[in-house]
């Protein structure tokens, strides 16, 4: 094993071009476990901690350009207003120690269906800034996840940042685990209201081979909200609409039975979370219940 310590982004890209099998390591949350438990012996480990820009973010007009290594604890503290869904999701990541070091780049690089950031990114809308010596491209988040722990990166590419749409409405994130802290998602759900475009977007984690959106559910809800004039009249969403939305979210899942939970539970739980997060976000949108957001 060789340890590469690029001092700059350019050096990192050059090293990745030269050694496409090099495994980037930043927070170490996934990579070090695989090494400690003897699951993986990469030829090259490439430390990204020395590249300062990866830990920085810029808040733009419409989106936040979030460096791949910005730690979750930073997102929770500093980007709560711009990226509320991701901030909530960040708060559910593992433990304070892990949140201090892990960032969204790691979640994207590993592309585990259980990564906590994915549902929030899918719901908010995002693009992954991937770069190689050949150039930069922005990969829409919907096209990024390709299979179980497979993503759209080319072997010579590294994730530099994620461009996430700034919230234009309430966002929520919920995750089911069998412990009240430090737990990998049995399944997770992200929801973002986008009043500007009068759309909703969803993200589902751990309930399919990849993180997914519940597109049929989104389309149903978009239509229902439009038809009922809900965006304008701010009425309470009828229980039947919420229920159907929840059912469609459940139906979007393609889960498995595993040691963390059963497939049927995952489908069920996604439906419950979909209904609840819709209620919370909609109440918030209506501005009548500012207190329903979790404070923790």
């Amino acid at each position, binding site marked *: *094993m*060789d*340890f590469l*310590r690029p001092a700059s982004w350019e050096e990192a890209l050059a090293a990745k071009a030269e050694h496409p099998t090099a495994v980037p*390591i930043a*927070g*170490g*949350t996934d*990579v*070090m*476990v695989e*090494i*400690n*438990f003897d699951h993986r*012996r990469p030829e090259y*480990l490439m*430390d990204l*901690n020395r590249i300062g820009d990866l830990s920085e973010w810029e808040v733009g007009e419409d989106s936040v350009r979030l460096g791949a290594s910005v730690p979750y604890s930073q997102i929770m503290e500093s980007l709560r207003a711009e990226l509320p869904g991701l901030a909530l999701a960040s708060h559910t990541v*593992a*433990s*304070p*120690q*892990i949140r*201090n*070091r892990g960032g969204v780049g790691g979640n994207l690089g590993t592309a585990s269906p259980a990564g906590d950031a994915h549902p929030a990114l899918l719901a908010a809308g995002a693009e992954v800034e991937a770069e190689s010596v050949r150039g930069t491209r922005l990969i829409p988040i919907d096209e990024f996840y390709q299979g179980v722990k497979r993503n759209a990166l080319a072997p010579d590419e590294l994730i530099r940042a994620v461009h996430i749409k700034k919230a234009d409405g309430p966002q929520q994130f919920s995750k089911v685990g069998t412990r009240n*802290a*430090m737990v990998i998602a049995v399944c997770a759900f992200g929801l973002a209201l986008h009043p500007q475009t009068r759309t909703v977007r969803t993200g589902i984690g751990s309930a399919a081979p990849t993180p997914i959106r519940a597109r049929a559910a989104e389309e149903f809800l978009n239509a229902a909200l439009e038809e009922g004039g809900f965006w304008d009249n701010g009425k309470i969403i009828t229980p039947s609409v919420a229920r159907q939305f929840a059912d469609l979210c459940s139906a979007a899942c393609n889960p498995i039975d595993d040691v963390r939970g059963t497939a049927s539970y995952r489908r069920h739980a996604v439906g419950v979370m979909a209904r609840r997060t819709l209620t919370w976000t909609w109440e918030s949108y209506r501005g009548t219940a500012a207190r329903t957001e979790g404070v*923790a």
Partner: protein
Amino acid sequence: MRVSFTVNGRPQEADDVWEGESLLYVLRERLGLPGSKNACEQGECGSCTVRLDGVPVCSCLVAAGQVEGREVVTVEGLADYAKQRSCGDSCGTSLDEAKGWQAEGTDSQTGEGTELSPIQQAFIDAGAVQCGFCTPGLLVAADEMLERNPNPTDADIREALSGNLCRCTGYEKIMDAVRLAAARQGEAV
């Protein structure tokens, strides 16, 4: 490879480090600092918690090569770290003080006479130590929380320590210890 970094205020160097080694392994097996514990080596228990450039992290998830040139504080340096924090800039940072964690002139069997940080003393006084394997990580995490949040609510304490597993105490005495340290800290100010 060679890795050079600062541990508890002292420059340290480790040679012939295998590239897959963790910071935890280097501390424990190469630098003679086994205080940080190896309970899970997968970031799930917090017993290896150290401060890396001031931030609490699981040292089992930090590749040794990643700490080149950086500063690490372990439980062995906690008393000194707390002491320097409490006297601010006024007392400087002499090398002798930085070596304080070596605890010379104490009873080797009981450690009596060792200078302790408030959180360390509180853990002993409150009965928060049983087998003690989780203790070093909890101390580093709790000390950092009290630095940030001197008057934590119970829910704050629980959240801050939710990455540190303890199997012996049921956490009640750990809660007592942190409350005690916070109260004593409050009295001292």
